């Protein structure tokens, strides 16, 4: 591949590494596996860079990351007895003054991470693509290879589960 294509690849694809890594972290729930999967995905992306036309490079890369995570997960399931759950740092908040704003924010993040980690993978991926990556339904449909109607219903069911897990009730609905 000529040098200018290498430069184009770096310009088009590499800015999305954080998003790629975030998706892999949520899908694989392990930081080392996520690193390996993203490296694998970038390798595949550059081998298939010819097939990338103008368009949303982020969605294109995320689709490859997602596929790498799926095959990574299959391999690891065979290799290991169990997959460790997310290292969501559970924080004990002491009563009263110790429960400062930062501890609350930390425990909120941990609660959200646990709730997302507990979702079945087909729900987890649409939630991350929508709420974290803010992709449109059309883009999510392309990334996960499912019709838009399916994306819509998975998102809806995923949100209901998250609402239950996080205890989102009428009280806090503004």
């Amino acid at each position: 591949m000529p040098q200018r294509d290498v430069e184009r690849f770096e310009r088009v694809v590499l800015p999305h590494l954080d998003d790629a890594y975030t998706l892999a972290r949520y899908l694989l729930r392990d930081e080392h596996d996520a690193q390996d999967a993203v490296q694998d995905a970038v390798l595949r992306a550059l081998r298939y860079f010819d097939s990338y036309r103008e368009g949303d490079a982020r969605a294109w890369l995320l689709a490859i990351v997602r596929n790498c995570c799926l095959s990574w997960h299959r391999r690891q399931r065979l290799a290991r007895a169990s997959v460790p759950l997310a290292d969501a740092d559970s924080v004990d908040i002491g009563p009263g003054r110790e429960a400062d704003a930062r501890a609350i924010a930390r425990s909120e993040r941990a609660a959200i991470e646990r709730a997302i980690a507990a979702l079945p993978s087909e729900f987890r991926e649409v939630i991350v693509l929508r709420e974290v990556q803010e992709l449109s339904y059309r883009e999510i449909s392309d990334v996960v290879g499912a019709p838009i109607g399916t994306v819509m219903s998975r998102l809806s069911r995923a949100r209901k589960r998250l609402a239950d897990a996080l205890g989102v009730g009428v009280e806090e609905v503004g």
Partner: protein
Amino acid sequence: MGCVECRDLLSALVDDELPQDERAEVRAHLANCADCAREHDILAATSRRIREGVVRHQAPDVLKARIRSMLSQPDAFAPVAEAPPAGRPRWTMLAAAGLVIAVASSALTYGALRRGTSPDGTTVALLDSHIRSLMPGHMIDVPSSNQHTVKPWFNGRVDLSPAVPNLDSAGYPLLGGRLDYVAGRAVAVVVYGRRQHVINVYSWPGEPADTPRSGMLDEKGYHLLEWRNGDVEMWAVSDLNRGELQQFVRAFQAAAR
């Protein structure tokens, strides 16, 4: 519009993904149905809460370094299904790489042999191996930052199970492992990073007759540190400065215990 149909569309309303006419119908229903309106508010509040509190990760520096190193490999862009393109660019690149290796290793060999601080066949071979590992595509056979991936990879490939401690927290991310051939024997090499530097850690079964030893050699900006871990002969080679390499080895020994 009935409640059942409305519920199916609520999430899409939250995401502003409904066409105008459907959006108007759903809104009209919500204005007259308290149950559906509450369901909508719960979905919207959940979405808001996730967006505000969810952790967005950053790709770690190690990962970026691994990807940069991958991109610099000449065959990285080769299409998977095709044979490598024949022709001048690739050939000249290989020839140039070979030349660099030849020049670098002869210079080092010469330097090492001159020193008289017991550089023997092994240290010369280790230096050659270290420099070869820095050539594109020669560093790592099993790229992984996971010790539980790297360690089992050596099973059946070498006559020992090398120590692969996790040194992330000490600032030495694991980059992977490779098999190498040094001074007449297959050796396990575990590769760590430190900023832009590479540390190769070699292990092979030591000879029982050998006296346990440890020591350090400096050569042309490279450093070699030798020690014994039980019956295993260990060497660390890097272009890190002397003190930093010693620190690394101390961290390695402490974690491998």
